[in-house]
């Protein structure tokens, strides 16, 4: 029951906001907080499940079930929404943004909990649609960026659907039961070659969301052109749908294909990690820096998943959650700049620390998190991912590790040009330092980052119990130890 509520509550709020058409900040915040509260019983281990809309030959379409990974991702998504709302709080378009974000949040909850592939697919499409809508209606309202995003995801998800069909038919032929539920689809006896082909298909559909190199073409437009609060939620939460799809659907459904693809996947993701870092290096636009470093981090997540190795998996899942905190922090930094009309190209900044020391200090914290400083949230994920994949393919994991040097240059240089040095004469004489609201957002995110960075085990021990659920492959050997 709870899992259904998790989807329906945000949708209900979105509907109410559409019908009422008046300012309702309190309602959106209350709804977001209620969503967080709803996640808590799940973490306690409530195996809540519902099944409705039974269709012949397809299974129950509205079939939602809690599982440990979904619970964690749901909580992350739920926690991220109030942050996005708080970042956008004083904005004229608050109501509009809150409405789309609520739709997006409900759909994301659906993708995490869906136990029927068609249900997952529909939720996944709604996510894409809502995300495109978000890009279209927020920030610079760039139609081109929204369209690019939509075309990427639509084309990709076509592959996703086509790749699952043969599995469905194979299982149906073997068992006589035609059903799209997870348990029915897993365990197909397709040959390795076919599995590899189908895995590539699913990867095309899911990798776009990450975005996996070279499917990241939409990322720059989406993250740069939309409002910071929107980009925050897109890069923090929406990408989780892609990660979840890979971990919960693609790999368990096609274990042999995943194993065959593993070396190529590691190489591809290692290239993507460095590629993102290098692109972040070659821009003076902070938004692009943030966008590409997000691409780089998500490719590292993919690297960990492809490695099919215990530590790498835990690291990748850890990193995807830490990345949500990081994205929130970095896009809040951009939002603060935008709220003061400062622009985000460092050519127009410089010496800002002197005018905004509090802002400068928090910015440094999140930049340090992004460059993988131990003690902050990203490091355990990056470390475990690289350590684990190093045991599988040392050369390429080692190459991906070199990305840490590039990342350092990227963020220190960005910090130096925008915050340090002499005050840029083009800056206005009076710039307000952080407001209370902004300071609290940073404080909470910073605390979360430190907690992830030093108390990493609380999260990692959760992964230990979910690994056998999602990937019997890892336990049975593959690249285990």
């Amino acid at each position, binding site marked *: 029951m709870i899992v259904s509520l998790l989807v329906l509550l945000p949708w209900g709020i979105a509907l109410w906001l559409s019908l009422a058409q008046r300012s309702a900040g309190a309602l959106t915040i209350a709804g977001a907080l209620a969503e967080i509260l709803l996640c808590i019983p799940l973490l306690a281990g409530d195996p809540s499940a519902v099944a409705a809309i039974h269709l012949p030959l397809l299974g129950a379409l509205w079939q939602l079930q809690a599982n440990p990974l979904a619970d964690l991702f749901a909580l992350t998504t739920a926690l991220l929404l109030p942050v996005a709302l708080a970042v956008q709080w004083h904005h004229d378009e608050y109501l509009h943004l809150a409405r789309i974000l609520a739709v997006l949040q409900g759909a994301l909850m659906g993708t995490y909990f869906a136990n029927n592939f068609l249900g997952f697919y529909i939720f996944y499409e709604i996510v894409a*649609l809502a995300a495109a809508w978000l890009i279209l209606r927020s920030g610079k309202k760039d139609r081109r960026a929204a369209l690019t995003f939509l075309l990427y995801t639509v084309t990709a998800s076509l592959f996703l659907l086509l790749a699952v069909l043969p599995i469905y038919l194979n299982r149906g032929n073997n068992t006589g039961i035609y059903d799209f539920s997870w348990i029915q689809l897993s365990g197909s006896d397709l040959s390795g070659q076919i599995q590899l082909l189908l895995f590539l298909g699913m990867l095309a559909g899911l990798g776009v969301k990450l975005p996996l190199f070279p499917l990241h073409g939409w990322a720059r437009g989406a993250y740069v052109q939309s409002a910071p609060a929107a980009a925050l939620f897109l890069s923090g939460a929406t990408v989780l749908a892609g990660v979840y799809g890979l971990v919960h659907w693609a790999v368990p459904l096609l274990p042999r294909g995943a194993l065959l693809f593993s070396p190529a996947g590691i190489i591809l993701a290692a290239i993507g990690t460095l590629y993102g870092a*290098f692109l972040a290096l070659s821009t003076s636009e902070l938004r692009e820096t943030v966008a590409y470093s997000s691409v780089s981090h998500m490719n590292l997540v993919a690297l960990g998943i492809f490695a099919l190795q215990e530590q790498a998996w835990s690291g990748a899942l850890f990193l995807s959650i830490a990345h949500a905190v990081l994205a929130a922090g970095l896009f809040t930094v951009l939002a603060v700049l935008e709220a003061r009309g400062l622009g985000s190209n460092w050519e127009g900044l410089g010496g800002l620390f002197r005018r905004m020391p509090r802002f400068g200090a928090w910015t*440094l914290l999140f930049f340090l998190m992004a460059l993988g400083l131990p003690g902050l949230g990203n490091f355990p994920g990056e470390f475990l991912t690289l350590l684990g994949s190093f045991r599988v393919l040392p050369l390429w994991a080692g190459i991906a590790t070199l990305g840490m040097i590039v990342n350092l240059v990227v963020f220190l240089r960005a910090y130096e040009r925008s915050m340090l040095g002499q005050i840029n004469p083009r800056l206005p004489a009076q710039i307000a330092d952080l407001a209370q609201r902004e300071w609290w957002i940073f404080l909470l995110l910073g605390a979360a980052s430190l907690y992830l960075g030093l108390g990493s*085990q609380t999260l990692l021990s959760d992964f230990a119990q979910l690994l056998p659920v999602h990937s019997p492959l890892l336990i049975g050997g593959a690249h285990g130890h």
Partner: protein
Amino acid sequence: MTDWLFLIPGFPLLGALINALFGERLGPRRCGRLAAAMPLLSSLVVLAIWLGPGAEPALLDRLWTWMAVGDFRVDLTLRVDDVSLVMISIASFVGFLIHLFSQQYLRGDYGERRYYFYLNLFVAGMLILTMANNLLLLYLGWETVGLCSYALISHWYREPENAWAGRKAFVVTRIGDTTLLLGIFLLFAQYHTLSISTLLPLVTAHPAPALLLAASILILIGAYAKSAQFPFHIWLPDSMAGPSTVSALIHAATMVTAGVYLCIRLLGLFAAVPGMLEAIAVLGAWTAFFAASCGLAQVDVKRVLAYSTISQLGYMFMGVGIGAPSLGLFHLLVHGCFKALLFMASGAIILIYADDHDIRHMGGLKYRQPFLRWTFLAGVFALAAVPLISAAFYSKDAIINASFLVAGGGVPYALGLSGAVLTAGYAFRLYFLVFEGKPSELEVPYQMGWGMKIPLALLAAASIGIGWLQFPPGWPGPHLWVHWLAPELGLPPRPIGLEGGLLTLVGALATFLGIALGYWAARRERAGRGLSRWRFLASGWWIDGTILRLFPAPFYALGRFLRSGVENLGVQGLAQGGLRDGLRLSAYALARGENGLASRYAVSMIAGLLLLLLLIWSWPL
């Protein structure tokens, strides 16, 4: 039980936290005092170890599990044995003295609170680094001090050069950090543990030659980058952009010695690789010689000391490499005292000359500042290793002499000894130029308070007397050091009898020759014909410039190529264009209106799904 060890890094960490959260309300003065109290409390706990249980057997304090996945497990365990006891004593006590000195030195600075935050965080990081029993925890401390070094070098961030110098330091050391991380990966892949006390016996019992060779080279690069060894030394001279107290703490007494400490910790690993220790000895001696030669030609008072630090660290590595790690550690302690003294004193000198760093503009300071002169001279004595009455005579000369006894020690001995001549040379050149001669008119009156004098006096006393802990073999007097450390580090080779006497004499002659060289160099410098005009030496053998010209550019070029060539043309252009052409009709339809976009997409999605269902339902089963 020793579950109070966490207090040692805990106090400065708490100080940093209080400063970060409430510092604005407390104000810079109280932040400063609070910050100074924290390393004092830590050093009292350290003192309690010295007076109380001692560190044999090693003290342990297990805090909590940081990460554990499968066979990988890292506990936050603090460990104090004799070696780390020395290190935490330096970090906490010298750290305290420098905090004390800063109270007056940095009063009224525009970033006082920020300064104390990073200084406290730095001490905490250094203590964690030295107390870590696990390579990953060590790495946590390692990166924390790297961050603080960056932030403090860039302390006066309003000058772009300072911000750049901080970044340069962080980037160069990060290269080493990354190779260190790769070394850690290799060791873990082979031995399934990162706990140092578990790892080393495994390495000895099951050596894997190729892997160990790779791992030790990678780790050594990390140590060299951190300890500013050739050719990774290029960041240290520029790091002098930070306040002198920062140079004293980070770039003399503590952080830069972390690489030496790591080598001492992992000695078992390096010893398992044939030829590795010999290489460390030769490279160390080479760095000692090379940097000393550069020191002779510098005109910035702090750059002289920076090259001196690089050179002295080279001696420490040499000590480790020739199988005398306890002497290396001894010199680390001695150097920590006298170089912290010299850096702090140079800070005062720079204030007196109104922020002028150029020693050619100085002179005759001994008349107005006798206290500064005598304490500085004590440091110069120690740096030059003046026989009998300076600490380095008992530590640095002991290393050079020991190398003579080791097989293949000829090259390190020759380099080390000629380095010693140059060392005494640049040390006394600096002293003569600043303190002797006619008083310079640039001098402004400056009164040092007790907060500045006490640290200088204590460190001056240590620079003279701390060497008496360990006299050369056969001499009357205490022989405490090497025997105390022998259970952990073994006994170093030490010349005895006639051979020992002769080697000591040669070492002493080298010092006196160097003093003469320094006198000569100072006179020429005064006359405007000094070694500083020799660009080759002054620029550090052109190494910094060469590296900066060769290495960063290709990376930026690659970035630009990937951006314009691959991303803009390929990914954004071709793929996107192709995608759009392929879907031109639907794209056109979709782009007609925002509301149309959503609804049309929804319609087409539903239609697609229905088509799919139709397909499935009509499938001939």
